[in-house]
């Protein structure tokens, strides 16, 4: 469904980064971490050992069907698990590609691909797994978690939400708008969990923002975006009609200031801008996942934070501003999976940063070492010897023992010394 070139671009955007991050020589984080053991258990040493969880299930989504399948699978393999991958049936060509190619390149006795739709997924979810990693919608996320509960299986849910983009007036507008546009329409024509869902800006700045957006859109996609090869189509007719219904609502359509064209045969919808759509409409309450960008206007830019926080926690939130104070407030007061200042979506490509949601946008995170951690169990290992025996631990609990014990637990070296010297003396 994507134009060839964008497809390649997005594979690389994160995937190769992930793979290169996991070069074998870099698998240093498999090694045990030594941690301090305290006075209370002296002498002793402690370690944290990472071990695989076992057999894990990865269910991926249709919008980045390659990336969202391989990315978690890389983490699962690096952590030493056996993996079943269930690619999305809504991206059937990619699913078939996996089924055909993956067994050829990896150990297909422990890494399997299961294709299919709802019945197959339901049956997979009935089995016992050591972890389930799901990328997709909140509705299905609930079903996955409830199924996992039967077997006490931990889950990671990478869900969606309405990612807000706040745009202040003190920005380099041309650069900001390009970044905003590529994050929205350059990402699968808005069909991305981290694409900006809506914009918040001041009433006074909105017209300038809209104009700049129009200019950049023409630069990217030409006069007739439906003819542009650089614009992704909508994945299928279900979603096509879901989207057209959103803007065909009279309360919404009158707010369109740019775009709105669609081509049913090609399943294409043009980048569309709207201003101040009524907040109770479906467009403004559900995740859009498409090429519509509603712009919400506020009196002062500071009000935008309150607006964003009144909604469920998003996977990502964006802020364009040079105002350091606003940046600080944004970082401190906007809960989200990830925050970007003066750019959009890029955090996905940084393997040092956790990628995952919070609240309605999900639980668990991955990328880089966190992918490894996501599919690992961190086992605490405490090693003691037979030295350092503290009689104070054991009954009968005399007053003398209790005071030494108190000291030991409080980390008192004096108590430790007493204990090591064999106090209190046992009467045999």
């Amino acid at each position: 469904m994507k134009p060839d070139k964008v497809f390649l671009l997005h594979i690389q955007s994160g995937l190769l980064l992930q793979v290169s991050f996991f070069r074998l020589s870099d698998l240093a984080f498999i090694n045990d971490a030594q941690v301090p053991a305290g006075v209370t258990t002296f002498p002793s040493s402690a370690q944290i050992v990472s071990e695989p969880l076992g057999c894990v299930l990865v269910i991926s989504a249709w919008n980045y069907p390659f990336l969202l399948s391989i990315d978690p699978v890389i983490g699962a393999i690096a952590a030493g698990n056996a993996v079943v991958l269930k690619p999305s049936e809504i991206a059937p060509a990619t699913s078939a590609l996996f089924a055909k190619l993956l067994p050829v390149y990896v150990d297909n006795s422990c890494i399997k691909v299961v294709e299919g739709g709802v019945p197959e997924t339901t049956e997979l979810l009935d089995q016992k797994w050591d972890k389930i990693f799901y990328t997709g919608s909140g509705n299905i996320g609930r079903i996955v978690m409830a199924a996992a509960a039967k077997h006490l299986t931990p889950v990671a849910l990478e869900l969606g939400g309405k990612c807000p983009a706040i745009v202040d007036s003190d920005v380099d507008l041309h650069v900001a708008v390009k970044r905003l546009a590529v994050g929205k329409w350059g990402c699968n024509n808005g069909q991305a969990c981290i694409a900006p869902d809506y914009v918040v800006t001041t009433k006074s700045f909105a017209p300038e923002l809209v104009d700049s957006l129009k200019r950049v859109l023409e630069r990217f996609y030409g006069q007739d975006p439906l003819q542009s090869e650089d614009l992704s189509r909508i994945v299928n007719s279900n979603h096509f009609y879901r989207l057209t219904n959103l803007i065909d609502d009279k309360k919404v359509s009158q707010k369109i200031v740019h775009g709105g064209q669609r081509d049913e045969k090609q399943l294409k919808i043009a980048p569309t801008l709207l201003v101040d759509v009524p907040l109770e409409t479906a467009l403004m309450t559900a995740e859009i996942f498409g090429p519509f960008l509603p712009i919400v206007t506020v009196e002062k830019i500071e009000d935008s934070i309150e607006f964003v926080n009144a909604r469920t926690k998003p996977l990502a939130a964006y802020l364009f501003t040079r105002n350091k104070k606003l940046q600080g407030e944004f970082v401190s007061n906007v809960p989200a999976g990830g925050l970007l200042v003066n750019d959009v979506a890029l955090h996905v490509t940084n393997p040092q940063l956790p990628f995952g949601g919070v609240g309605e946008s999900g639980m668990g995170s991955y990328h880089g070492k966190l992918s490894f951690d996501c599919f690992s169990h961190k086992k605490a290992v405490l090693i003691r010897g037979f030295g350092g025996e503290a009689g104070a631990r054991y009954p009968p609990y005399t007053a003398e023992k209790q005071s030494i014990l108190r000291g030991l637990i409080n980390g008192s070296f004096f108590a430790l010394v007493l204990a090591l010297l064999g106090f209190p003396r046992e009467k045999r």
Partner: protein
Amino acid sequence: MAPGLGAMEEKPAAATKHTTICLGSMASGLREVYESGRTKDMEWRQSQLRGLISLLTDNEEEIFDVLHEDLGKHRGEAFRDELGILVKSIKYTLQNLKKWMAPEKAEAPLVAFPATAMVVPEPLGVVLIFSCWNLPLGLALEPLSGALAAGNAIVLKPSELAPATAAFLAANIPKYLDSSAVKVVLGGPNVGEELMEHRWDKVLFTGSARVGRIIMTKAAKHLTPVALELGSKCPCIVDWLDGKRDRQIAVNRIIGAKWSTCAGQACIAIDHILVEEKFAPILIELLKSTLKRFMAEPGGMARILNEKHFQRLSAYLEDSNVASSVVHGGYMDRKTLRIEPTILLNPPVDSDIMTEEIFGPLLPIITVKKIEDSIAFLKSKPKPLAIYAFTTNESLKRRIVEETSSGSVTFNDAVVQYALESVPFGGVGHSGFGQYHGKYSFELFSNKKAVFKRSFLIEFMFRYPPWDDSKIGTLRHVYNYSYILLFLNLLGLRR
């Protein structure tokens, strides 16, 4: 009045009748308090942690009393396992709070220059903690301290099966902590179920797998993330030990980790022992003689929680094959709910006592031909919360760590891992998921938010449509971190 499942509801003074509406308005009230930002300040968090320490140190005698009332715990045990450890842990949290709250810098790739990347911890919001009856103070306040440190508003639901401790918490938490942001809800399973009808930002549950499943299923409706601290059969491998001293120490520690820890009613208590045939008699003799000394005074061991659990434990010995394997103890007093330390040698491996979590003062000893065989036995059972092994054999230690999986492994001691703030505490597989203690408590109740900041200064065209092959070529260099090639490429591409 016999303590039991319905006990809380029969006490009109202490219990509050909770309806869905009441709990709902409490939950939304807490959310408002949280949204006001009050719990996020470091000062608030510090004051709460200090308040918690005062709660514990001001009321030591009463704490010993309630723990004795609920479980017959001796004050020595109560201090060692609950009060003392809690104060130590909260002090550790206070000392490290500023460090934990600070954003962690992450690398930003050169191509994004100038840029900064960091991970910022923030509270999850309003969290719910269910605690268990066996360490009724510790299992309530340890997670509570983590949730406070992470800046959350909190609801604590202590177990109704330890009613004196629950009442103590309900009376004192409002006195020492910010009662608008920290609530205690008393009641039985129905109250727990009603609480779970609401959305929370996190739920930590300590208890049985059966209830854990119910909690997680209800949490799924709201996409509430959960951490489940469940039980398991914690095995203890005892290798051949040379030397009287080492043997005595091992036996001391085994007794400490079984009978001295709430009479074996603890998720990390030793459930059963695996030992070589030829060492078993030595071990049993030493256990017997040491038990005599340790349990010389009355009250050295806690009592069984209630009739129901007493019945459950005595039923294990109703199986004649199991009863005939008793080599020490076995005496049970229903009136005082006390069971003496009991040792069994090779009860049938398919008997209830060997398949269910014992959670009591009965210690089965299973013999194997070679000690290495214990690893296979261990692996045939669900992953436990803890594995213990008394051995000086380094290769056996390595095999245990590498070939088995468990929440934790402790060599040459048992239960003490609970006291170490530097290692995570939690299960895996059937014993649960989610870890806490020390910094892990803070992280359990935090959202670690990725923050990436860029400037408008440098702008690359290869990010944007319209697409062409040369842009993809450039991107390849970017993603391979081939900066020299990228530089050359960009020079060539200069528009």
